[in-house]
């Protein structure tokens, strides 16, 4: 019997099985680079600096960094106050705490006044083995309901770096999911250009189209490559921004393929899959949609590869799901 994997300590990275390059702490690096020329950028965290990759910013700009302790409502309130004095605060915590504990503050103290607050949310979806307390499985659904809030689920180190800079130029509140630690490079930094609200076709395909967000874009690309060897043509549309949602791109992509699949590191209801369905129905596009996402239940503790495989989020499981549709 194979040795069983175990839940890793917080902040430990799972060993990767693929040949992709990695970047360590892409968010922290990008924020430091940006802040050198943008004195209005300030950083905040609620006792999760180490685990949200913001410590490089603290070390580079100690006067512009504020750790408010384990107090997420205050984290967001303080960020709102800083924004009202002309600062651009990047406030980090885990997605579960930002959304479940500080929802009213994101909605009213930030979004209602369109303040320039950037919420950076770690441990998106099923990226930790710490169970339901730490897995932000419904954050995208919660955040996309808030008027005026930009919601971003980046897929890799390239996109995190580009989005970290791009959101500083967007006047208004942003909720961005964070991949931390050793983050894979999926997108070529020389070729890819992140734009808020723009979906990008990363792979053309005729038989099946996968509309994906966050780390599921990596899985969709891997699945498409594997299925190509079996004669199946699978396209991938990467939706980095759930709000504003690029409905035009999704509708155009849907029209170009026979079968449509959505893939998200999030419950299958309320997030990307629901957005795709709304978009198709609004436009009268009759196409069957298969939604890959997490089930409507809380998920247990365990090792992340084990959990992702069990709940259908690995490249292999995505490929199996797609193959089973045709």
């Amino acid at each position: 019997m194979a040795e069983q994997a175990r839940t890793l300590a917080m902040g430990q990275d799972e060993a990767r099985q693929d040949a992709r390059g990695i970047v360590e702490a892409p968010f922290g690096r990008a924020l430091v680079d940006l802040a050198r020329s943008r004195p209005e950028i300030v950083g905040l965290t609620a006792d999760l600096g180490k685990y949200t990759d913001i410590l490089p910013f603290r070390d580079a700009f100690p006067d512009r960094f504020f750790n408010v302790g384990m107090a997420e409502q205050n984290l967001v309130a303080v960020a709102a106050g800083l924004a009202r004095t002309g600062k651009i605060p990047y406030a980090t915590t885990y997605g579960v705490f930002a959304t479940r504990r500080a929802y009213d503050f994101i909605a009213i103290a930030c979004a209602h006044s369109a303040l320039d607050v950037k919420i950076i949310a770690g441990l998106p979806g099923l990226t930790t083995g710490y169970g339901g307390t730490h897995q932000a499985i419904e954050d995208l659904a919660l955040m996309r309901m808030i008027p005026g809030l930009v919601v971003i689920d980046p897929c890799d180190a390239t996109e995190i770096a580009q989005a970290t800079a791009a959101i500083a130029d967007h006047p208004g509140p942003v909720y961005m999911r964070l991949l931390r630690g050793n983050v894979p490079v999926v997108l070529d930094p020389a070729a890819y250009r992140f734009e808020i609200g723009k979906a990008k076709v990363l792979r053309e395909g005729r038989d099946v189209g996968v509309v994906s967000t966050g780390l599921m874009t990596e899985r969709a690309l891997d699945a498409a490559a594997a299925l190509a060897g079996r004669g199946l043509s699978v396209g991938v549309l990467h939706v980095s921004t759930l709000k504003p949602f690029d409905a035009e791109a999704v509708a155009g992509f849907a029209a170009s393929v026979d079968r449509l699949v959505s893939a998200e590191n999030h419950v299958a209801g309320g997030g990307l899959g629901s957005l795709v369905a709304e978009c198709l129905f609004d436009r009268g596009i009759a196409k069957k949609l298969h939604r890959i996402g997490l089930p409507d239940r809380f998920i247990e503790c365990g090792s992340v590869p084990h959990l992702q495989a069990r709940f259908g989020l690995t490249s292999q499981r995505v490929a199996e799901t797609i193959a089973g549709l045709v």
Partner: protein
Amino acid sequence: MRDNLYADTPDLQALRMRAKNLRRHILAMARGQGQGYVGQGLGIADLLAALYFHELRHDPQNVGWPDRDRFLLSTGHYSIALWAALAECGVIPLSELSTYGADGSRLDMSTLDTTPGVEIIGGSLGHGLGQGIGMALGLRLDGSPARVFVELSDGEMQEGATWEAAMAGAHFGLDNLVALIDCNGIQADGAVVLDMEPVAEKWRAFGWQTAEIDGNDMAAIVAALREAREGSGKPKAIVLRTLPGKGVPTLERREKAHFVRVDPGEWDALVAEFERTAETIDG
């Protein structure tokens, strides 16, 4: 910028007159609407008069002045008093007060920051102090002399976010921050439902330089605000014991004063009572 900044000898008589004017406006506004948070408004009229006509460095003709002192009304439903103060000092026209609570008016029953002179959206209680801390940090970072005054209430302190903010204010040593805690003893369900005493001891224990005063005594308010100017390295808290409905004996005695509804025929009597009482107050 106002000329009488930090006058060493504030004209208490003039400030009491301003407070009377605020109460007069508040009663007129509530009369127009037929109801409102009159009790709270009358209760903090003295504080707002002291702030807007003595302590705050502000410019009614330039509400966006970057170095202005900020006044954050966390209890958005006290808007009736804020509108009265903003009109009395010239930020909004006095003639606009009659629109309080009317559809399309800028003078809402609960504050939105779209009205000139309003620094935050109040009303989701527990939001003000944390935002005040962010402002105080930002202003300090900029080397601004501006200070931040945050009003909050005794009932509001039941929101846990208040204490998250209280810890942070002391941790960051924000001596450009003043919390003004209106203890009027009432909340939505009646008398304060969860005992918050001893209020001043709580703030002291959290590391704030704390004073406790009669919030309807102008001399005490001015003195406490003056003490709060000290650069002690600590945030300041002033606990104001106020009387809801202050200045109108009938309303002072009313048991459930959180939200006052008055019969149309009753207003004349209340206003007459206020004017009679106001005459008897020194100044």
